[in-house]
């Protein structure tokens, strides 16, 4: 069993507080992604779990052991780095064998020529070779074994780096942006491969990325980190549709979630430039709030609901269209709120939306999310009912 338990981890580099009081409980066999913009501390957190950095405060448990004082190689973990970090002077086979040789043979046994005197060393080396070829077979890279890293493509290096982590049979896999140096197509392919590898090995994966597509597609659960703190730790679906913080809502989803400035009325509703959204909020009148709504959740009057259909709307002017083939994004300028709202439509309807037209943007109340001025989510009963159904 290898659940990973972090309690109150803090880390500063000089004056900069990179991590402040991070506590996470990662279950055995789970694929957890730490997602956040660069500089949010996610890589530092991973390196603290690996033992490459020492935390200033807090405790780490892997499985049943507290590992705070253990060296990286004693923690039963393996790590895949962004730059792959393959040993340039060793062949692929040598790269895969090195961690095993270090673990299974003492330094005297690793001396060149020692194998001639000991059948034991030869047996261990046979075992190492068997495990290297098994890993190579699993990752379909047997033909790469005699090559040097300089002779490999980016995707092949990536595969070797994963293989080197795999041969050690760790209880926890740590991955630090392993796909960010690959081209887009290969990245999509490797995403599926890593997810498959996780299912096959069944061990705990902790994966760090700034790419929300990787986080959403591979993980069981996602930790969204900002400014050295985890903001939300839940399933990819909940991260997208039920964010607890405005920063999470803004970071996840493409195009970005629409955010509209509003004011509470004190009548259990929010005022958006004259449009009154019925919200079950227990806030005094006059509080500044932010209403957020996904482009895919909005609509344009005439498509979803005509004026008077019950769906409240904002009037705006179409200033830009983006046709992605699968989606059509309309950018509507809402002068009353001094903002632009993006609305998703079906691309087949593009002719119905000439640039410059006046349109009515639907704000379906059950899909809208409200956040207070500090960015924390304001739960409303309407949303709660929608999520439950």
């Amino acid at each position: 069993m290898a659940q990973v338990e972090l309690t109150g981890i803090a880390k500063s580099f000089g004056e900069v507080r990179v991590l402040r009081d991070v506590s996470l409980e990662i279950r055995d066999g789970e694929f957890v992604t730490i997602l956040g913009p660069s500089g949010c501390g996610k890589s530092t957190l991973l390196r603290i779990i690996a033992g490459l950095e020492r935390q200033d405060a807090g405790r780490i448990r892997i499985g049943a052991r507290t590992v705070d004082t253990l060296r990286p190689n004693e923690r039963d973990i393996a790590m895949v780095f962004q730059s792959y970090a393959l040993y340039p002077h060793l062949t692929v086979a040598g790269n895969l064998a090195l961690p095993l040789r270090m673990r299974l043979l003492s330094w005297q046994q690793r001396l060149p020529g020692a194998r001639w005197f000991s059948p034991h060393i030869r047996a261990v080396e046979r075992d190492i070779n068997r495990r290297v070829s098994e890993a190579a077979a699993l990752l379909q890279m047997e033909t790469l074994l005699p090559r040097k890293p300089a002779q490999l493509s980016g995707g092949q290096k990536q595969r070797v780096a994963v293989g080197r982590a795999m041969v050690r049979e760790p209880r926890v896999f740590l991955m630090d942006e392993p796909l960010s140096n690959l081209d887009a197509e290969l990245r999509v392919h490797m995403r599926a491969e890593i997810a498959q590898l996780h299912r096959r090995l069944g061990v705990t994966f902790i994966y760090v990325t700034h790419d929300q597509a990787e986080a959403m597609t591979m993980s069981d659960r996602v930790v969204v980190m900002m400014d050295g703190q985890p903001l939300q730790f839940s399933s990819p679906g909940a991260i997208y549709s039920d964010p607890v913080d405005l920063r999470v809502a803004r970071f996840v989803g493409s195009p970005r979630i629409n955010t509209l400035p509003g004011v509470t009325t004190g009548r259990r509703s929010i005022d958006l430039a004259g449009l009154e959204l019925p919200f079950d909020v227990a806030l005094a009148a006059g509080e500044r709030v932010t209403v957020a709504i996904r482009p895919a959740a909005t609509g344009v009057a005439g498509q979803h609901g005509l004026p008077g259909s019950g769906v409240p709307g904002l009037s705006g002017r179409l200033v830009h269209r983006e046709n992605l083939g699968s989606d059509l994004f309309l950018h509507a300028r809402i002068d009353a709120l001094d903002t632009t709202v993006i609305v998703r439509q079906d691309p087949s309807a593009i002719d119905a939306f000439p640039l410059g037209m006046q349109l009515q943007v639907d704000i379906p109340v059950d899909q809208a999310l409200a956040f207070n001025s500090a960015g924390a989510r304001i739960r409303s009963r309407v949303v709660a009912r929608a999520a439950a159904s």
Partner: protein
Amino acid sequence: MIGRPSPWFDLVRHVTLLAGAAVMLAPFVWMTVTSFKPPHEIFAAELTLLPRQWHAYENYREAFTKVPMLRYLLNGAIVTSAIFALQVLVAVPCAYALAKLDFRGRGLIFAMVLLGILIPSHVPAIPLYIMLWQVKLLNTYAALVIPFVISVFGIFLMRQFFKTVPDELIQAARLDGLSEFAIVWRIMVPAAMPAVISFGIFSVVAHWNDYFWPLLVINSRELAPPPLGVAYFRNEEAGHDYGPLMAGAVIIIAPLVLAFLAAQRRFIEGMTMTGLKG
């Protein structure tokens, strides 16, 4: 526009380079042909490139028999390889610490290394001489080796190269269970092999050709490295007999020339990598 340069430019360029090469090579050519000539031809009024009467066998026999030339070569080999091996042993871990480990005072120590490069080797000669005299090591191999064991240039060169090795490689090695010493010798040195080789070239050439320091600390003939040996030869044996003297000179530079020809490409890589002139 990038295209073929005009043939005139090509011609001028080649003539210039050839002239430069001729100027550089002339002393070596003269040394070599002189080593083949009998004494009367060396001082003959007219200049000839090839000897009319070959005297190579006699000259070289004299160089090998009158003085222990092979002994000098062996001394040179022992001293330069000992110096280089110990320099690497000291410089590589120092360079690793300065490039990749974080510790208090690292900047200050590196500044001192840089300062060390600025000091000409002749400045500490007298203190070193007195120190070796006090520990009674004058006139030993140790006297030839010890002052050069710490090469600040070597530390600097290796540190610059280690800086370019990504941190993640070192972290991967730590995860794989390598100790810091194993990282230095099994990961950093193989990764920095071009730097080690170019440092080796500098070190071996400099100490093989060094005349100043052996002249100070060595006075027994059996310990003399090649340049000092040739000097003895000149002073005592050959006098004004330049044929055997030039033969001796050819013999002592031959190992370096052969090594250069064998590893020409590495040699040039090393020179260009460090951005220094030889």
